[in-house]
């Protein structure tokens, strides 16, 4: 049983006009076997929250805390956080030219597991995982994310989730840009991770459609750099009906597809 606890988190970036605060005191606690949906309009700071937890150098935590089972996450380097059991599926996965997917996956698995996986088991494991996500085996020899379509990138993020098996997964708009089939395949992948047990999920999304595939236990509305309302799955239904207008005053921000 693990706990990821975010307390009064303030995060800023350095811009040409000086320091700009993007998160204004985020509070959120996620436990193993809980799925929390974070829903909010564009620009509300959802990605900023996920980057700050993962340790992206651009985002500076100015106050507050993030702990994993009581350990100070903010003290850890980016790779230490990953090895401690945090995983961020990125909204925009990064291309790494010249590094093959298979080399990358094996290097990452070796780092996270603390020893190189036995080759025979590993090959089988990757093959099965790729198969479950409908990923063509030829991708293994391609450079990481290079020239992948949006949907292919997202499938590979979930592939990494499956192979690295973290304690907590932060999924930043994994659903955006997916067609119906890809959304189903990716959601099934997330649900397998969830059903494995002992895993907590922070599911960041702009739209409600992924919640038809992945049922959240808790829903939080994120606006203006903080959590503005929390509730159960019924809150998503309300967002589906009314959009974010109550939180942003902007009628155009619909939460439905």
């Amino acid at each position, binding site marked *: 049983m693990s706990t990821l606890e975010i307390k009064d988190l303030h995060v800023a970036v350095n811009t040409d006009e000086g320091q700009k605060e993007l998160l204004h005191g985020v509070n959120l606690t996620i436990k193993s076997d809980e799925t929390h949906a974070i829903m909010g309009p564009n620009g509300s700071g959802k990605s900023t929250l996920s980057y700050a937890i*993962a*340790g*992206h*150098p*651009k985002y500076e935590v100015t106050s507050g805390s993030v702990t994993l089972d009581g350990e100070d996450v903010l003290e850890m*380097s*980016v*790779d230490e*956080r*990953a*090895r401690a059991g945090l*995983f*961020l599926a*990125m909204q925009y*996965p*990064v*291309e*790494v*030219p*010249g*590094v093959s997917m298979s*080399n*990358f996956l094996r*290097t*990452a698995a070796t*780092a*996270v597991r603390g020893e190189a996986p036995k080759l025979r088991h590993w090959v089988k494991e990757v093959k099965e995982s790729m198969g479950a996500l409908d990923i063509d085996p030829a991708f293994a020899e391609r*450079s*990481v994310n290079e020239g992948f379509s949006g949907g292919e990138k997202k499938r590979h993020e979930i592939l*990494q989730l499956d192979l*690295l098996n973290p304690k907590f997964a932060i999924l930043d708009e994994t659903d955006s840009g997916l067609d119906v089939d890809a959304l189903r395949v990716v959601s099934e992948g997330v649900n397998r991770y969830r059903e494995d047990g002992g895993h907590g999920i922070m599911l960041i999304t702009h739209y409600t459609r992924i919640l038809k595939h992945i049922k959240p236990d808790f829903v939080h509305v994120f606006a203006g750099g903080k959590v503005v309302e929390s509730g159960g799955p019924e809150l998503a239904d309300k967002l589906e009906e009314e959009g974010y207008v109550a939180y942003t005053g902007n009628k155009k921000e619909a939460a439905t597809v």
Partner: protein
Amino acid sequence: MSTNVAEAAEAVVPEVSKGERFRSYDVDAFEVPGGREEDWRFTPMRRLRGLHDGSAEPSGSATVEVIGEASVETVDRTDSRLGEAGIPGDRIAAQAYSAFETATVVSVPAETKLEGPVTVTVTGPGTDQVAYGHIQVRAERFAEATVVLDHRGSGIYADNVEIVAGDGAKLSVVVVTDWADDAVHVSAQHTKLGRDATLRHTLVALGGDLVRVSPTVQFSQPGADAELDGLYFADAHQHFEHRLFVDHAVPNCRSNVVYKGALQGVDAHTVWIGDVLIRAAAEGTETFELNRNLVLTQGARADSVPNLEIETGEIVSAGHASATGRFDDEQLFYLQARGIPEDQARRLVVRGFFHELLMKIDVPEVRERLESAIEAELEAVGA
């Protein structure tokens, strides 16, 4: 690279067309360069140890050893084949031409395909010793071969390398400059390509104090294809300079230049000049040149100057790209976010940077040597 610390702007069209460049075997026909000239402005003249002003008298000799199936001759300057691929275009090349004692001619007979690579090992004359050399590599019509020119040792050395590929020949020349730290090497590499000939010229620059290599490609007949690749890794205080000139003088030839370099340490300096000239007669030309530099630490500097001069509009394509950047922080973040420690992530990124070129080196021993050299370089800075 997402961050460009120095991006070469539009291709500069030189004031004097490269096609009109002065060429001569006579060293005195060239003025002693002072360092401000376009050809010399990036070169630290004092570190040339007198190669450019006549003060570097030959005091030793470089040894040339050839292993492989090709025919090898040691000839004197009266051999009529010498000079076939090109005439010196600067004072050091003319100096080397005037001063060499014997030339080595490595040739592959017509319609012969050599299975393994031919390795020509040039060992420098020794610390503070000066030598001049001349090597000609010939692939006669329809011959196919890979020739490695491997440079090792110490000393001060200038040479002309001639590469002659006859009609329909397929020749791969891999030039490795793996000199000791004190070495100074200035090399003019002239290439002449026959009808439908294919040349792959790969430069691998690993060692030496100052290494300046000027590959020139001259298309003499239509249909030829030249692939010019370069990989370099410069450390503190090393100066590696590459000056390419591709002269499209005849129709329907193709050239593709890809040079990639990594730099680390104080005063590591690399220079890449890519001059491509498409003359009026060269209709149907297809050319592209690319230079990328990865600056790994502060205090290192990469200069990159593409020049594209086009005298006819009737071409297939012509283009260039040049970018110099630091490590891409987003790539590092992504790899680290998957648990990969920073030093290992950096190594993956650098290896990835060179990957496409490494895969094109068709001599496994050279490729492995280069891979381990890159590893060793990265270990050295603790990157």
